[in-house]
């Protein structure tokens, strides 16, 4: 039987987090009350004109440089014409045959797999649309009696990054998107939040017999709103197309919609229904011609990119690959790590605490609360642990307390009584008391049943109100029982 391989290309849309919109002075912010960040330009009022935002151009050039694109010395905006109620001008200002960034690549690492290089076709600049809500008791479109449009998002700078069809699996697609997100995050150009729509992704998927070089019929998939749904949708689509090929059903060139609840894709529009966008050069905006000096200035100012950072963490701190991958995928985490390590904390311990315990707390309490944890907190916490002044369990409690209150570690340890009794005199008195009380247990130990030591340590912990250093308690017990 023929074996098929998937050929996948991704088109990612990234909203830039500039202070103002792409072509007007309106504020660019998520979550403002509807239609409060609008003006004649982004509402498409008659006679208004778009003026490109220089900061947005700077950011897309930076993105292109990070992806190894050629920055075009001459690029044009085009109008993409189609009617949609939430698009104020009924055309989108976008780019067509002369994008700002041409070519490039992104090196990605598939978990438990090998690295691969995904080509970038182009990165271009455009504007976002408004948002339509269909007002009806059921919230469903077909019995809606009103369509409400919020134009706050209209005109927000949007970067489209188109990959080559170099991706072969859902996991690789996920790795690509994660790497792209980490790269954009390191450039500080976008919030890259899929759940808020500041990072969106469509996929083109086709199948072909392994070994073939010709491309099969391509299907576009839309509406994948998270990393997970991207991978799920691709897995579904690959299996759907493979089954079709195996049963001799034709693959239709079309756009399909991913339904998260149903876990399936469904036809949205066929090739025949595809729009003719009637692209033509935007006459209201002169060509974008960044100077070579400016481009070089931006190249020189590029920050350390995720790949370089991962390599450095391994080389400098000897961290493990999995830890590094998790750490570098999140800019907040890697920033916290860097500062904690630079204050003298053990890098491996810091990395573990950040990627495991703190990540868990961020899930439980939210990222905002987790952001209360400062490098100083971690340094203090690791120092106390190193000195055995607190237990591992105590440290976990202390960290959760920081997330909840933001208090100093010292204050928390005092307030919660987490400091371990590590003074052999003080603890010795408690140990003596426990041994006196549990005569049989002592006897059993002396008779060779060493496992009873766990019970005795537990009793010491109980008697000390949990503050005893268990290691020291065991040592003292053994000393007395064997001595």
């Amino acid at each position: 039987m023929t074996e098929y391989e998937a050929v996948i290309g991704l088109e990612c849309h990234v909203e830039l987090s500039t202070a103002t919109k792409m072509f007007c002075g309106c504020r660019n912010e998520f979550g403002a009350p509807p239609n409060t960040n609008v003006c004649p330009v982004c509402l498409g009022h008659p006679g208004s004109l778009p003026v490109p935002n220089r900061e947005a151009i700077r950011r897309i050039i930076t993105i292109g440089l990070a992806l190894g694109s050629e920055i075009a010395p001459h690029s044009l905006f085009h109008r993409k014409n189609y009617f949609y109620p939430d698009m104020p001008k009924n055309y989108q200002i976008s780019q067509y045959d002369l994008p700002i960034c041409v070519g490039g690549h992104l090196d990605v690492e598939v978990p438990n797999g090998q690295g691969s290089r995904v080509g970038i076709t182009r990165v271009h600049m455009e504007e976002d649309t408004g948002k339509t809500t269909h007002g009806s008791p059921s919230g469903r479109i077909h019995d809606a009696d009103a369509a409400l449009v919020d134009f706050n998002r209209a005109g927000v700078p949007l970067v489209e990054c188109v990959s080559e069809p170099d991706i072969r699996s859902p996991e690789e697609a996920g790795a690509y998107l994660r790497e792209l997100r980490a790269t954009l995050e390191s450039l500080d150009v976008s919030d890259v939040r899929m759940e808020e729509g500041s990072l969106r992704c469509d996929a083109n998927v086709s199948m072909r017999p392994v070994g073939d070089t010709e491309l099969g019929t391509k299907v576009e998939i839309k509406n994948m709103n998270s990393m997970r749904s991207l991978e799920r949708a691709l897995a579904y689509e690959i299996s759907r197309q493979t089954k079709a090929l195996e049963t001799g059903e034709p693959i239709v060139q079309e756009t399909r919609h991913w339904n998260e609840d149903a876990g399936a894709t469904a036809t949205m529009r066929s090739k025949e229904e595809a729009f003719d966008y009637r692209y033509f050069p935007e006459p209201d905006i002169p060509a974008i011609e960044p100077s070579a000096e400016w481009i070089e200035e931006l190249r020189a100012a590029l920050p350390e990119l995720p790949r370089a950072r991962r390599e450095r963490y391994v080389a400098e701190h000897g961290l493990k690959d999995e830890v590094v991958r998790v750490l570098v995928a999140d800019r907040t985490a890697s920033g916290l790590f860097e500062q904690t390590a630079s204050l003298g904390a053990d890098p491996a311990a810091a990395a573990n605490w950040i990627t495991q315990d703190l990540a868990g707390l961020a899930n439980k309490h939210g990222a905002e609360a987790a952001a209360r944890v400062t490098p100083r907190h971690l340094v203090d916490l690791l120092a106390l642990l190193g000195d055995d002044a607190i237990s591992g369990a105590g440290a976990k409690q202390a960290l959760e307390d920081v997330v909840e209150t933001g208090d100093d570690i010292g204050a928390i340890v005092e307030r919660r009584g987490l400091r371990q009794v590590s003074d052999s005199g003080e603890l010795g008195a408690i140990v003596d008391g426990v041994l006196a009380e549990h005569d049989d247990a002592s006897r059993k130990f002396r008779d060779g049943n060493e496992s009873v030591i766990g019970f005795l340590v537990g009793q010491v912990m109980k008697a000390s109100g949990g503050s005893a250093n268990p290691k020291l308690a065991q040592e003292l017990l053994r000393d007395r029982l064997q001595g």
Partner: protein
Amino acid sequence: MTELCDLTGDELSTKLRAGEITAVALAESALARREAVDDRVGAFLTPTPEVALERAAELDTYLATGAPQTGVAGIPLALKDVLTTKGIRTTCGSKILETYVPPYDATAWTRLSGAGSVLIGKTNCDEFAMGSSNENSAYGPVHNPWDLDTVPGGSSGGSAAAVAAGMAVWALGTDTGGSVRQPASLTGVVGLKPTYGRISRYGLIAFASSLDTVGTFTRSVRDAATLLGVMAGKDRRDATSLDADVPDFTRGLDDGAAGLRVGVLAEAFGEGVEPDVATSVRAGVDRLASLGAEVGEATLPHAEYALSAYYLIAPSEASSNLARYDGVRYGLRVDGDDSIEMMFRTRGAGFGPEVKRRIMLGTYALSAGYYEAYYGQAQKVRTLILQDYAAAFERFDVLVSPTSPSTAFPIGAKADDPMAMYLNDIFTIPANLGGVPAISVPCGLDGAGLPIGLQLTAKALDESTMFRAAAALESDLDLELRPPLLAAA
């Protein structure tokens, strides 16, 4: 009888400065003229008498302090109804914007207003500036004050007629393919289309963005120079506005034509040009020669393709520019079962036939598979015309042609023949494609007593030389141009 409203802006500014007249008296004079004649002319869609009188009174108070005064302060101005005015209805001569009140002022008007200009009203025009006779207005035609049975030209017919009949001392229009110069020619006034980008397009409701310019109607070349000086210059709200020095355009107006190199466009005197027009324009050229200009024969070899190129580029851009009128955010809304049907119905009811024709033309020209053959080819013609101008301006300072092949024609005469109508702009369109400045100056009357215009074109940003040639001709001809409508009054 000549009244205040019949004088030039320059004459009136001098009188205001000297305290001989007040801005209120001047505004009242223009308002009275409108009351007297506009029921027959139809130049205004939205007169603004209260706004004008209030503003004039403020200016009188200000002028009485002896404070410095601009050349436009206190002088009544009419605006073509495609230029946005904050709080004042702006219709584009279309049903689709019948109720539209813009939330902002066009930059051209902002600058004039800031210099003390007095807005007297918004003028009639062809719908979305598409037309050459003003018959395409949804609010009825404009009648030419020289002969009420004829058209005033278009698309800025209302502004032209208002200035010709003294209802405004001067007015703004817009010129995409001749929409200022052709009506100026047909109504016996001076019509200026500056270099593309000289005046901000912000607030000029777009017809064809790469061709649209704000232009002026005045009773003298000097007045055109004055208005241009106030409006010209980079505007941060229009990325295509030019960041070029703005000279004092009124300087050198009296330097005469001696030594100017004048190129006569031979091809502009051929078939289709009315004999009286050709004769009058040639006589104008002879006058320039007699004033010491060096006259030679010039050519724009690709100008014969200009009309075809224009009728691909302009409708293409228009089809996109006019897509925003969908009933969602402003203007007319005709309800439908869903938003798409609402949009279809709104556009079906809101646009007139010529606008629909051009939207269809443009949509077709931009369609997949046709783009290269139509829009792409037209852009190549445009490049060739730019090269033609570059070559011509190596030899000449200004080029001369008739503004329009004919004088004013009867209302209805060409209404059913779009091709005949489009040919009105055959001499004006090349300047829009080339982005160069051009001006129409009256050069005589035809056998029927209707005005004829002579067009002068100069290289980009060289309005000063063009004004100098135009002023020399104007001063030498010294025409007394008063429409019969006013003589009878």
